[in-house]
Each structure stands twice: as structure tokens, then as C-alpha cells.
């Protein structure tokens, strides 16, 4: 497949890398010189310097013979123009990143019909939902939904006092019809076997039925008090959306924003939440506003460093749960070391959404994890290798595990003797190195 990507920022770059590594022909259009150099130096892709909203530049990138255009610049307008131009040149599928909700309403066919955009990536919305889900399942730092909302995978960080620490996976007592599908230890993903011993600060991925996911989390997590009060640092697009979403479910919010105009706007939008105007977050301020009493501290300013620092500060002053938004890949490994419980990356969310869109058909859902591991929901096609024998017989790779099978309305938690059938929906946890192997097994 030939793909044109407009904009080589965080989202454009990760998407380009991902698609190029999957073997697609990637053309990147970028205006900023520094970014052009970075892409040509690091990726096996054709880079064209210039404005991606310009028809001439798009022509130069060979947009007419491409199968997909992804517009991921910072400017909504440029993305929209690029998609419209591509559509008029006959590009069959277009994806655009849109920030401003004025341009995009999931209920309205406007984006598709008038702007010629098949798929809109709304990273702020995705990040908001991500954080909200995690806060609503206390104890878990991340919750993903699969198999038509009937299966959830919850990510739990094991505290020293967790009953699971020091035990082998097979000894951990979990409710029925649930299992540990993956472990990320110090940034490395691994697929647990029965004798894998769990350690403190392991990120454990628990799969279970949606309505019982709370019980599953409670079996290994120690702190499962519901979140009632949240302090949000940064009243930007994510901060405001999150505050509104949390207010809706009855969680009280405090928002800290450094721009006075924006602070006033946020305050006028919230029903009850308090908004503070504070240029730089300080120890005095955090103590004054009782950061030690809030259940969660969420740092989602536009500045990764500020987010990490504030989350660290809040943790040190006694906040129960800390969340940081991190857009640049290089900071992600730091978060773990600094004791930030949850990191939310618009970059990964966007890349995951694009991947899902590109693989549409066989792949139903993809969640990318910082460690490079993926949680994928696939549909077993007719004649796939994986359905030729039981899971043990088809040599399912060691770096991957089938977490759940959705057969019709039924959800099965498989063992090695189960055999996949065409039409099954399958939730797979896989480390980075096993992704290709898994895809080969599931190829038709």
C-alpha cells in the first residue's frame, strides 16, 4: 500500500514509522526543516519538504497513485484542505487529525461528506476517554474494552502489599473466567507462563468480562477506593474535556490553569468545579489546595516536562494516583522511573487508531503500549493458519497469548487445547517481536 502522511510531528512520525515497518510505501510531507531531517535520517520513507495543504506539493508526493492519505499536522485547516485535495485526486481513503470539535461531530456526516475525511482522529477526545476509564476503575491504571464491549483488559501496577507479589502466576487467585494476559516489567513486555513470579511495580494486564472487571482488579490491587476528587493541572483541550466528563459522573474536580483568559473560560464551563489561576505550580499552592486529599492528580498541560514534574510533586505530597499526559516518545520511559502511575500519550492513541483503520477488516481493535507490546483484537479469516489445529499445535509464538475468544455471543477463556474457528473474534496480547508472527498466523 502507498501511504502519504502530511506532517511529521509526534503523531505523523510514529505513524510513518509503524507503517513503514509493516512494509508499506510511505511518503512524508513536512514543512519544518528539522523534522524533515529527522524523518529522512530515521525512517525508510520518502520525505518531501513543503506544505502538505498545497495541491502542487501533494502532486509531487504522487498522491494520485496512493491508497491512503493521513493528515496529521497541528493545523486543523491544513489537514482538512489536504484531505479535500487528496479526495479530489482520487485517493480512496483519508484520515485527518482534528483538534477543534467545531469541525467534527461524530453524529454529523459533515466530515465525511463535505470535507472528504473517512476517519477523524481526535486525540484529545481519546486521551480524555482513556483517563476517564482509568479513573472510573479504581486500582487499574488503564482499561481497554474489546469484543463488542463484553471483555475488558485492566492494567494494574502491583504495589508491595499486593497479594500477588512474590507469587507465581498460577498461584494468583483470580475470579473465574479471568486471567493475566501480559506483564510489563521495567518497560519490557513479557507473556507470563504459569511459573512466572510477579514482582513489585509490575504492570499486570488482567482480562475479564466487563461487568466483573472490578472484582478481577480487586484480586491483585490493594488500593481500590473509588475516585471522588480529582485535581487537573492544565485546563487545555484535554483538561477541560476531562473535567466536564468527570463532573458528569459526579466526581468533583479542581482545575489549575496558568493562562488567566483560559482559566476564566474553563470556570465558566464547569458546573461546580473550582478553577485556579496559577502561573507555576508551587509546593505552597499544592498544599494549600490539599493535593494530599485528592484521589487523583492529572497533569495534562501541553508541556511534557511540566506534566512529569507536577505529577512527581503531587505524588511526593501524598496524592493517591498520578496521571501525566506525555506527547513525546522520549519521555515515556522516565515516567515509570519518576513514579507516575498512568501515562497517556496522544501520540500512541493516534497511532493505534490509524493502525486499526489501516488494518480494517481483520483487525477490530489495537492498543499500543509504551513498551512496544500490543493488544489486538482480530477476526479469524477463512483458511488462516491459526485455525488448522489447537492453539498448542499451531505453535502460537511464545511472545503472544490468546486472552479471550468471542464465538457468537459467547466469550471463552481458552487453554492450549482450544481450537480457533473462522469467524471467531480473538483478543491477543503480544510483545513487539512477536507481532509479525501473530499476523502471519492470522493471515487468510
Amino acid at each position, binding site marked *: 500500500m502507498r501511504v502519504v502522511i502530511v506532517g511529521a510531528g509526534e503523531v505523523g512520525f510514529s505513524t510513518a514509522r509503524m507503517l513503514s515497518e509493516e512494509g508499506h510505501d510511505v511518503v512524508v510531507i513536512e514543512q519544518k526543516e528539522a523534522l524533515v531531517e529527522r524523518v529522512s535520517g530515521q525512517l525508510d520513507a520518502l520525505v518531501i519538504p513543503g506544505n502538505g495543504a498545497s495541491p502542487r506539493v501533494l502532486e509531487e508526493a504522487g498522491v494520485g497513485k496512493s491508497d491512503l492519505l493521513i493528515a496529521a499536522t497541528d493545523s486543523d485547516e491544513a489537514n482538512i484542505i489536504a484531505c479535500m485535495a487528496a479526495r479530489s485526486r482520487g485517493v480512496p481513503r483519508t484520515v485527518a487529525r482534528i483538534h477543534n470539535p467545531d469541525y467534527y461531530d461524530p453524529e454529523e456526516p459533515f466530515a465525511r461528506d463535505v470535507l472528504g475525511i473517512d476517519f477523524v482522529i481526535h486525540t484529545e477526545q481519546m486521551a480524555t476517554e482513556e483517563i476517564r476509564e482509568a479513573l472510573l476503575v479504581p486500582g487499574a491504571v488503564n482499561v481497554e474494552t474489546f469484543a463488542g464491549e463484553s471483555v475488558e483488559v485492566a492494567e494494574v501496577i502491583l504495589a508491595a502489599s499486593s497479594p500477588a507479589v512474590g507469587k507465581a502466576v498460577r498461584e494468583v487467585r483470580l475470579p473465574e473466567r479471568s486471567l493475566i494476559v501480559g506483564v510489563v516489567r521495567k518497560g519490557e513486555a513479557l507473556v507470563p507462563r504459569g511459573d512466572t513470579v510477579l514482582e513489585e511495580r509490575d504492570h499486570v494486564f488482567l482480562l475479564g468480562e466487563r461487568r466483573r472487571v472490578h472484582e478481577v482488579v480487586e484480586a491483585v490491587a490493594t488500593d481500590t477506593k473509588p475516585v471522588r476528587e480529582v485535581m487537573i493541572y492544565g485546563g487545555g483541550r484535554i483538561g477541560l474535556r476531562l473535567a466536564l466528563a468527570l463532573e458528569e459522573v459526579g466526581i468533583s474536580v479542581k482545575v*489549575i*490553569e496558568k493562562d*488567566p483568559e483560559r*482559566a*476564566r473560560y*474553563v*470556570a*465558566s464551563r464547569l458546573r461546580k468545579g*473550582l*478553577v*485556579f*489561576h*496559577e502561573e507555576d505550580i508551587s509546593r505552597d*499552592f499544592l498544599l*494549600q*489546595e490539599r493535593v494530599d486529599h485528592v484521589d487523583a492528580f492529572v497533569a495534562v498541560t501541553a508541556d511534557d516536562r511540566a506534566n512529569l514534574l507536577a505529577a512527581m510533586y503531587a505524588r511526593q505530597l501524598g496524592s493517591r494516583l498520578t496521571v501525566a499526559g506525555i506527547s513525546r516518545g522520549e519521555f515515556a520511559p522516565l515516567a515509570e522511573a519518576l513514579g507516575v502511575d498512568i501515562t497517556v500519550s496522544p501520540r500512541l492513541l493516534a497511532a493505534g487508531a490509524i493502525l486499526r483503520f489501516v488494518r480494517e477488516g481483520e483487525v477490530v481493535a489495537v492498543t499500543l503500549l509504551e513498551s512496544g507490546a500490543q493488544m489486538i483484537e482480530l477476526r479469524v479469516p477463512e483458511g488462516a493458519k491459526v485455525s488448522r489445529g489447537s492453539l498448542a499445535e499451531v505453535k502460537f509464538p511464545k511472545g503472544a497469548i490468546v486472552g479471550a475468544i468471542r464465538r457468537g455471543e459467547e466469550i471463552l477463556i481458552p487453554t492450549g487445547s482450544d481450537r480457533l474457528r473462522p469467524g471467531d473474534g480473538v483478543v491477543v496480547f503480544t510483545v513487539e517481536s512477536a507481532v509479525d508472527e501473530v499476523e502471519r498466523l492470522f493471515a487468510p
Partner: protein
Amino acid sequence: MHPKVVANALCALLAATGLAMLVPAAYSAAVRDGYLFYFLLPALAGGAAGMLGFFATRQTRPYVSIRDVFLIVSLGWIGVGAAGSLPYALSGFMHPVDAFFEAMAGFTTTGASTVAVPEETAPSILFWRSLTQWFGGIGIVVLFVAVAPLVGFGATQLYTAEHTSPVPERLTPRIRDTAKVLAYIYLGLTAGGVVALSLAGMSLFDAVNHALTTVATGGFSTRSDSIAAFDSWAVELAIVAGMVLSGTNFALYFQVAQGRFGRAILNHEYRAYLGIMLAGTLIVTAALFAFDYRDSISQSFREALFQSASLLTGTAFTTADWNAWDPLSQGLLMLFMGIGGCAGSTSGGIKVVRAVFLVRNAAQDMLRMVHPQAVTPMKLGDRTVPERFRVAFLGFFFVYIATLVTGTLLMTLEGIELSAAFGSVYGSLNITGTALGPVGDAEFYAALSAPAKLLLTFFMLLGRLELFTVLVILTPVFWRN
């Protein structure tokens, strides 16, 4: 300042007043009460002089500045009051000062009166009295709903601020069309009032007079005992409904007319207004039953409902002598007079929206004591009120209190006892024309000295035009180029 523009508008108002006097003249001719000449003379003279002046000062495409508006409005009310007092004075029915007082109490819809026994007064005079209030009411509605939001004064600014566009629910793009629709609404309410009161058992004359003064929330009555004279639940309910409807922002009727009933009912000020009325009625009912030993809850409720609605809207009709009530009820009713009805209505007081604003502002001040960094925009419904309004409203409240204090002190100079001095100024400033103590009686006003009467008419004007509109004219800055 454009003297020609101001003169032109004032002449138009004079001509209109003259025309208006033809109505009682016709009525006088019909009932032959002997006052025809005293209406006809000022009607013709005023009408002719006004029209002459109007055509003499007419300009094509005049430029109207905000100062012109303030001057036209203030001088206009005084001028109309002076012209409207002529029938009273010419006929020898009243001393000229009393006549001016009566006319201003009419056109400002205050309802204070020196007429002790209306039953002994000629019907055409009574009719004119009621009409002055009615014209004052429509004047104030047009001024504050159609003109003020454009020019930027008065509490309706806030109503404006509650909606998105800068010129929001005027709903028609031209002031003239807006005024026309407002007049239809006003006429509709009046006609409804006449029908309801007739059905409730009033004579046509009483029904028309009371409908006119109810929709204006004015309170002139044809009986010395006010509404108590009719002793009828049905009459009282009809008048309560009329007062509540007239204390509502007339812009909301626009919305209803446009089919946006839900939006209108969600209006923040409107709900606060109904809430205050309901809570007040219930408390007064309980107090009457507990402290004043009414025979039944229903009797307490009947008296409490009428008096609460009457004083909150500044109408000051009465069905009971609340001077004899318990202090709690009296205090509440006095408070209601100060709060008043909605902005953009014919009612008086500082207006519910300002009261809500003051309470919220105080709460926010206290919140900021605990959370110094907290950002606290003032919200009304979904809209945020610009910060400059906050300052303007606190300023308004200060001027209101200062005016009240100054007025009270000036009245004591005329040898009036302190509580009555306060009551009379409070009643004038809040456009009720009544207050606790002797101030509700016509005898009290009749006995005042001429300077005291003129002082009170000035406070009626101040209250009616929401202070700044008049006071700004008294500042040197206004006259500087």
C-alpha cells in the same frame, strides 16, 4: 449633545401625551362628569404645541448620542409628568404641586397618591390616573427591553449578557419593530386582565382601571380600601396572576411568541423571581398562622400570597393591613419591595437579577478568601457575565444605598419623623409608593410640604430610570464636550 434631537424627541412625547388625554376626554364626555374641558384643553394645546415643535426640529438622519438618550429619557419623564398633571390642576381638583406629584406617581408607576377617597372623585379623573400608570408601564418596557440593551444601561444589560449575540433577544432587528411587538404583548396582557377581572365580578369601570394599573404594576385603585374592597378570591387571584406576569421580563414573552417556551422558562432570573415569591408566600403564610392567629391556613395563604406578589412587583395593591402583622412578615415584605421583579418588566426595586448577583458575588468573595487563586466568573445560566458588569453592579448598589440615605436625611429636614422619612424614600425609590408605617396612606402624602413632595417625585424618577440614567445628567462630565 444634540439639542435639536433632544427637543425633537421631547416634542414628540408632548404630542403623544396630548393625544393620550383625548381618551379620558372622550370618557368624560360620555359619562358627563364635567371634566371634558379640563382634558380637552391640555390635550389640544399639548398636542398642537408638540406637533409644531416636532416638525420644526425634525431632521433627516439625525445622529443620536448616548447623552441624548439619557437626557431625552429623564426630561421626557418629567415633561410628560408636568403635562399629565394639567387636568388635575386646571380643574382645581388639586394644588399644582399635588397634581405633579400624582402625575409622576402615575407615569413612574409608583402609585403613591394624595387622593384619600377615590370613590368621591370624578370617574374620568380616576381613569386618567390609571392611564398614566399604564402609559408609564409601556414606556418603561420599551425603554428597558428595546433601547437600553442597545445603548448599554440598566439591569437588562445582564439579560443581554445572558445570551450569545450582543443584541440578542430583541428578536427583531429594528427598535421600532421590537417596540411594536412589546406593545402588542402589553395590550394583550391588559385585555386579558380586563376580561379576567370582569369575569371575577368587577364592574367594567373597575375592571378596566385595575387591569391598567396591574399590568403597569402601578397600584392606583378606584377604591380607598384597594383590592380589599372587593373581598373576592377570584379578583385577588386574577390580580396576583396579572402582577406576576407583569413582573416578568417582557423579552421572555418574545421567546414564548417564537415558540421557545423552554428557553424562556429556564431563564435564570425568572426562576429566582418565582422562587422568591413562592418561598416568601410560604414563610409569610406560616408566620401569619403562627403569630397573628389567623383562623385557617387558607386564610393566611390568601393574604400572604396577595401581599407578597403585590410588594415584590412593587404594585402595592393591598387586601390586608400589613401594618398590623407580625414583624417577620413586615420585614419580609419590606425586603421584597427592595428586591423587586425581573429586569425588563414594569416592576420596581433593584430587580431580582441584581439581588441574585449581589448574593453570588458575596459568596464568591468568601470562596476566594479560602482559595486565593480561584477563578470565579459570574455565571447566569450558561453565560458568563463580563467582569465590568460586576463592578457596575456593585457601584449601582452603593449608589442605591447612598441615595436612600441621602433622601432619608433630606426628608427629615422637612420635619418628618425618621422612620416615615425612610419609608417614603424607600417606597419612592423602589416604585412601590408604600412602606411600613403611615407611608401607605394618602393622608401622609397629602400632608407633606411642597418641597417634600417634589423631593419624592425626584426619587420616583430615580428609581424608575434605575438611578444612573438620571444621576449621570447631574454630573459635570455629562455637560463637558
